[in-house]
């Protein structure tokens, strides 16, 4: 069956592309050029995707991303969208290049002094609490349902309260971040500490291993995939918490502050530059944790390759 289908593919795609572009061209040449870029890029990706090589698996998403950026640029330029509504990627890049020192100061204030500190404190506290819960079944039956309940609540809402309590400085941002990351991390850590199998625990028991030995040699390693799952979820939460908290009050530096101010001045290119910083910081932070996970949990089925 596949042998009869294969030759069909070779001309069907270019044919479809041509017809679609021709139809749209009749309506509007600007739409047609956007559609042309999209369909040609998509065609290249479809052909590339048939390869199983690692090169293709990197190239395909890169082409897809570049296509989206090109479409954005084209749409803004061709339809003459006002920069107050949506600036083109090149304009954002220019704003980014011109304001690197401001962006860096905001990054340090919000990410390093707010989100990162809160992330470490929150995840650390959650892990210690998970150890306590793990040792007492009463705590587990009591705290876990409450924790599960709180984890789905809109905790961002506590931002105005914490800003009121701890002032405009980084400490209020840290408090918001701690509140946001604590429960998702707690649930994952508790789940992880239970992940070892009864057989494995029995083996440790026959070795006469005490609590700490079996914790370090068996239960922590088996908990790692769960811990990393929690850590990865919390990276984004930490950034969100720190930036949202700044909307409620901050010193005159910080990403949330800058976004709020620049929106007021209608300097959308600067706002998008700030968003770019947030995106890079978020992806970088997540990537770092994911890299660490791959190094430390190389034995887990989800990390196996090839």
């Amino acid at each position, binding site marked *: 069956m596949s042998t009869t289908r294969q030759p069909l593919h070779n001309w069907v795609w270019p044919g479809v592309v041509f017809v679609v572009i021709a139809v749209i061209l009749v309506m509007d040449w600007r739409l047609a050029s956007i559609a042309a870029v999209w369909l040609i890029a*998509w065609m290249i*990706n*479809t052909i*590339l*995707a*048939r390869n199983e090589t690692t090169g*293709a*698996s990197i190239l*395909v*998403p890169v*082409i*897809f*991303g570049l296509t*989206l950026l090109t479409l954005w640029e084209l749409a803004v330029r061709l339809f003459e969208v006002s920069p*107050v*509504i*949506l600036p083109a990627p090149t304009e954002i890049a220019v704003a980014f290049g011109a304001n690197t020192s401001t962006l860096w100061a905001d990054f340090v204030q919000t990410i390093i002094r707010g989100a990162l500190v809160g992330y470490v404190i929150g995840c650390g506290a959650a892990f210690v609490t998970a150890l306590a819960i793990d040792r007492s079944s*009463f*705590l*587990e*039956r*009591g*705290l876990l*349902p*409450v924790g599960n*309940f709180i984890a*789905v*609540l*809109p905790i*961002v*809402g*506590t931002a*105005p*309260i914490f*800003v*009121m*309590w701890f002032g405009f400085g980084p400490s209020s941002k840290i408090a918001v971040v701690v509140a946001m990351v604590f429960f998702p991390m707690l649930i994952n850590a508790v789940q992880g500490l239970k992940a070892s199998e009864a057989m494995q625990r029995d083996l440790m028991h026959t070795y006469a291993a005490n609590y700490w030995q079996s914790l370090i040699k068996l239960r922590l390693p088996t908990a790692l995939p769960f811990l990393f799952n929690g850590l990865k979820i919390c*990276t*984004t939460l930490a*950034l*969100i918490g*720190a*930036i*949202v908290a700044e*909307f*409620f009050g901050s010193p005159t530096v910080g*990403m*949330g502050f800058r*976004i*709020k101010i620049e*929106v007021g001045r209608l300097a*959308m290119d600067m*706002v998008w530059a700030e*968003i770019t910083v*947030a*995106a890079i910081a*978020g*992806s970088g932070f*997540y*990537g770092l944790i994911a890299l660490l996970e791959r190094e430390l949990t190389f034995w887990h089925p989800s990390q196996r390759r090839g």
Partner: protein
Amino acid sequence: MAVTEQHPPCALCVATQKVLAAVLPVLAVVGVIVAIWYAAALGMNRGWTLDVAERQGVELTRGEIWRDAMVQERPRLPAPHQVAQELWTTTYGEDFFRERRGEMRANPRSLFFHAYQTLAPTILGFVIGTLAGMILAVAIVHNRAMDMSVMPWAIASQTIPILAIAPIVIVVLNAIGLVGLVPKSLISAYLSFFPVVVGMVKGLRAPAVMDMDLLRTYSASRIETFWKLRLPASVPFLFTSLKVAIAAALVGTIVAEMPTGARFGLGARLLTGSYYGQTIQIWSALFMAAICAAMLVGLIGFIERMTLRRMGLDR
């Protein structure tokens, strides 16, 4: 009689015991939290009480300080009963509609009204996000190019703290004439589509090789395989993600309401509360949001149990 007759334990006793074992620890923890809350309220509010007393030159006994710390109008931390009272008066104490300038309008004093203002975009956004997520997941599973190009960006899109810039998105959408329900629900949709994509892709790929092979021996087409095997297999995964997605959708709406000058909705309640120092209002809005989240997740959980039971997948 040599053999004593073993009574089966009475069903009611067993049931009560089970419920008690589940509920008691939770009640204990909640009790401890409330106790800590009262203690914290006392500790944080007594400073204000002492300030006022000093300015008036009045000596207060300890009992008077305690009593005053519990009933302040703008406490740093309202006591639980104050929040409960505010919740009660703004829900059952206020009519949902009231007459104004000769016509019946929604009453902005009613917390139910604000909750409705938040829930409507949440649910609309959740539906949009879920549908988009499901379509995307089906495309990803069936098209290799989709899988390779979209999946990495879907993951990257969630590492971007979009929620933090949600207010800006709202401002921009308002500028191009989109007002009201839609902008808020777009934020909710953006947040809820991702868990659905991930869960659904996992679910659609869940059928074992053996099952797929069986359908191949039946010479089933891709569409038949989809309806008869892949889709049913994905349902448990889908529901797990839906619970995450609806909670995320609610958070999205609330944040979207915050610094955009929205006048109605729980997020707007939080914001006006923080502008005017109305801490009791902030806390009651927070609790209303919590109740909404619990209800939504509970509702999805209920539908999940019903569906899985019908499908014979419940354990």
